[in-house]
């Protein structure tokens, strides 16, 4: 062996290199994930240029170039998003061989029309008909303003009957439950008086059902009348090859002309898109629209989980470290807790389903709502955000317990003795000195556990997350927090859009975007943990020890 090589091995430089390389590898992978997610999300949000492509066979189309590669035959090709689903027989995307392309340009007046159904339409505006000021010569910008104006008018008129209909639906639901209860109680009433009372209730609810029904029909016909009236306002567009197609304005969500935008316009558009994604409801089986319910569901879930698992975990950790005698019992408890941290999350899901949903939820239903159980309606026993958050809480509990124990162990015994020697009880010492000193460690561990829980999906699928929920776990309706409701969740949303959707390809960018939001949520939690730890460390710094 050459002496130089020998020396190298002797001073272990190779290990330094190897460990550095593994760190580099990890960093590179993180960078790739980050880049992939950000780039793809950016593609959804940033208004990019719309190509008008003329092909060798004489056909033309409008579309967004997505990505390119070399086909198996060795020819360069580009994948275009071409929209116009009903014209292009359902396909959103199309591969184009570069050799077939005769010409590409970017007409200023090309429009991207985001529709309530059927995804995007790319084309040119021809005219607007049926409105009070119909026009054959509107510019894209003017058309956008007309559309906004139309939507304002439509919302102000259609919103009241729509809200009325929703309220009537709720009233019907409520009345139906009252009906079930009256019917159930009447059959099992012990005294004739009680039977009489429930019978009266039953008749009242039947009457009320009739009233609600007629009222609903009235509201419905009112709504339909308004809709029909607005339906008359349409816009006629032409596709790239000149085929004319007309849509009622009420079917359009948004229009934009990306080829006619400067940087500021594009940036503004970007901001609007971000806001829409965050604030709107999903459309078309989650392949379009926003993520609001999923975002709210995730935040509410993590919050509920925190509320349950934090006090429980800290209390258990405190007991184990401060009060439990070191014996076979406390040691096996510790082993159990550590093992619990390694249990796969789907197992927690199964436990949550069996214990929380069927066990606890089912019992609550049988106890409080026997009539609904008899009618096959579940309230608590069919999965809900409370059971999901309890399951997640259980999943994070070991982490919180271990973090608490470790943080408590770092508090020097001299400090405890100092407090005890001044006549403090153990509990006072714990509350006033030990816990504040341990709090940075406890909180850091807890927030990291929360970040992990925010991204957990498997247990939720079994205990209450759904692909689309008709109501939110938090809303303006008493009691504001509806813990028994099913909910949507970002992680589950990714799974649903990416793998269960009827149009996976169309929702792919949205999958990346959802992933990005989930990542941001986790990052925010982690940074909060770091910031909190720093602040607490400063406050309870142990300098001088």
């Amino acid at each position, binding site marked *: 062996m050459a002496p130089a090589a020998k020396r190298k091995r002797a001073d272990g430089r190779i290990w330094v290199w190897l460990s550095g390389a593994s760190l580099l590898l990890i960093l590179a992978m993180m960078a790739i994930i980050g880049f992939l997610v950000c780039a793809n999300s950016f593609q959804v949000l940033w208004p990019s240029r719309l190509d008008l492509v003329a092909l060798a066979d004489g056909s033309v189309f409008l579309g967004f170039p997505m990505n390119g590669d070399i086909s198996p035959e060795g020819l360069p090709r580009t994948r275009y998003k071409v929209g116009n689903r009903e014209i292009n027989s359902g396909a959103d995307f199309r591969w184009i061989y570069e050799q077939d392309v005769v010409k590409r340009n970017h007409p200023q007046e090309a429009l991207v029309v985001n529709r309530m159904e059927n995804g995007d339409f790319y084309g040119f505006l021809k005219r607007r008909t049926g409105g009070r000021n119909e026009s054959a010569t509107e510019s894209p910008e003017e058309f956008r303003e007309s559309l906004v104006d139309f939507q304002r008018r439509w919302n102000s008129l259609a919103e009241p009957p729509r809200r009325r209909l929703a309220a009537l639906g709720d009233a019907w639901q409520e009345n139906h439950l009252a009906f079930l209860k009256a019917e159930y109680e009447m059959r099992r009433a012990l005294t004739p008086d009680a039977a009489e009372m429930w019978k009266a209730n039953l008749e009242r609810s039947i009457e009320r059902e009739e009233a609600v029904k007629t009222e609903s029909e009235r509201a419905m016909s009112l709504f339909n009348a308004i809709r029909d009236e607005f339906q008359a306002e349409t816009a006629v567009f032409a596709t790239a090859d000149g085929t004319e197609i007309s849509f009622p304005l009420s079917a359009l969500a948004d229009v934009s002309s990306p080829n006619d935008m400067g940087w500021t316009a594009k940036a503004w558009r970007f901001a609007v898109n971000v806001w829409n994604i965050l604030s709107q409801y999903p459309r078309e089986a989650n392949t379009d629209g926003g993520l609001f319910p999923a975002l709210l569901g995730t935040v509410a879930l993590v919050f509920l989980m925190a509320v349950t698992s934090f006090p429980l975990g800290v209390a258990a950790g405190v007991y184990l470290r401060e009060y439990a005698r070191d014996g076979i019992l406390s040691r096996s408890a510790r082993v159990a807790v550590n093992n619990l941290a390694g249990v796969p999350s789907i197992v927690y899901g199964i436990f949550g389903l069996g214990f929380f949903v069927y066990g606890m939820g089912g019992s609550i239903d049988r106890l409080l709502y026997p009539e609904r159980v008899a009618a096959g309606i579940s309230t608590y026993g069919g999965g809900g955000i409370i059971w999901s958050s309890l399951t997640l809480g259980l999943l994070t509990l070991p982490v919180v317990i271990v973090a608490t124990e470790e943080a408590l162990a770092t508090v020097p015994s001299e400090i405890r003795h*100092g407090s005890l*020697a*001044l*006549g*403090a009880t153990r509990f006072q010492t714990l509350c006033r000195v030990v816990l504040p000193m341990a709090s940075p460690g406890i909180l850091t561990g807890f927030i990291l556990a929360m970040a992990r829980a925010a991204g957990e999906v498997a247990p939720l699928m079994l205990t209450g997350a759904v692909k689309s929920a008709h109501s939110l776990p938090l809303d303006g309706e008493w009691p504001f927090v509806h813990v028994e409701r099913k909910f949507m969740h970002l992680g589950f949303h990714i799974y649903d859009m990416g793998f269960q959707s009827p149009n996976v390809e169309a929702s792919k960018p949205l999958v990346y975007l959802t992933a990005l939001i989930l990542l941001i949520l986790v990052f925010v939690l982690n940074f909060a943990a770091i910031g909190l730890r720093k602040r607490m460390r400063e406050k309870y710094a142990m300098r*001088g020890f």
Partner: protein
Amino acid sequence: MENGDGPDTLIVEAENLDFHYGEKQALFGIGVGIRRGLATAFIGPSGCGKSTFLRCLNRMNDLVDGARVTGRLTLDGEDVNSPELDVIELRRRVGMVFQKPNPFPKSIYENVVYGLRIAGVRDRERLDAACERSLRRAALWEEVKDRLRESAMGLSGGQHQRLCIARAVAVRPEIILMDEPCSALDPRSTTKIEELITELKGDYTIVIVTHNMQQAARVSDRTVFFYEGKLMEEGETRRLFTSPGRRETEDYLTGRFG
């Protein structure tokens, strides 16, 4: 002073006190009286049980698993080890300063009034007054009066120890136990603490454990010599240092062991 050994002058009396850490016996038949208002030094080689005896006085040994004490130990005639005795109350009457300064990671003010707060004192003025009085007694007031709200962790080691003394003084104990209070400090801080002890005795009974013979000679009125868990000799400091009554004492004082 030498003569008045009556119950009035003795604040602590131990008689035939045995102490066990589980199987291991650490104190053997200790019998001693500690006089009110004086400074008493405990000396002896390492591991001879000085700290153990000190911790018997405020029952800090309760915190050790398997600790067992037999014999009689009284404070003002009250049995310290009686189950009826309130340990909290006892520790308020018998304060303690540790070898390693152990201020809480709180503000200077909160450190000083800690003992009062946990005793349920809420009154602002009382707390403020106690804070100032205690810091003055601990000769720390002038140095910290402008930054009472700042973290105590920013003080020096010597200041930390004086803060701990102030913290002990704040609850107005009858006795202050000090277990090698200067062993982690530099000479100047040591001098300060020694001056402080001379200041405090009279108002408080002081018991100080030390390995520094000069220190014992300088600050204490009486000295107790422990050896292998037994009390070897007890007496007026000057007398014990100049004419020790026992061989072991003389050997220890002349540095032949320990």
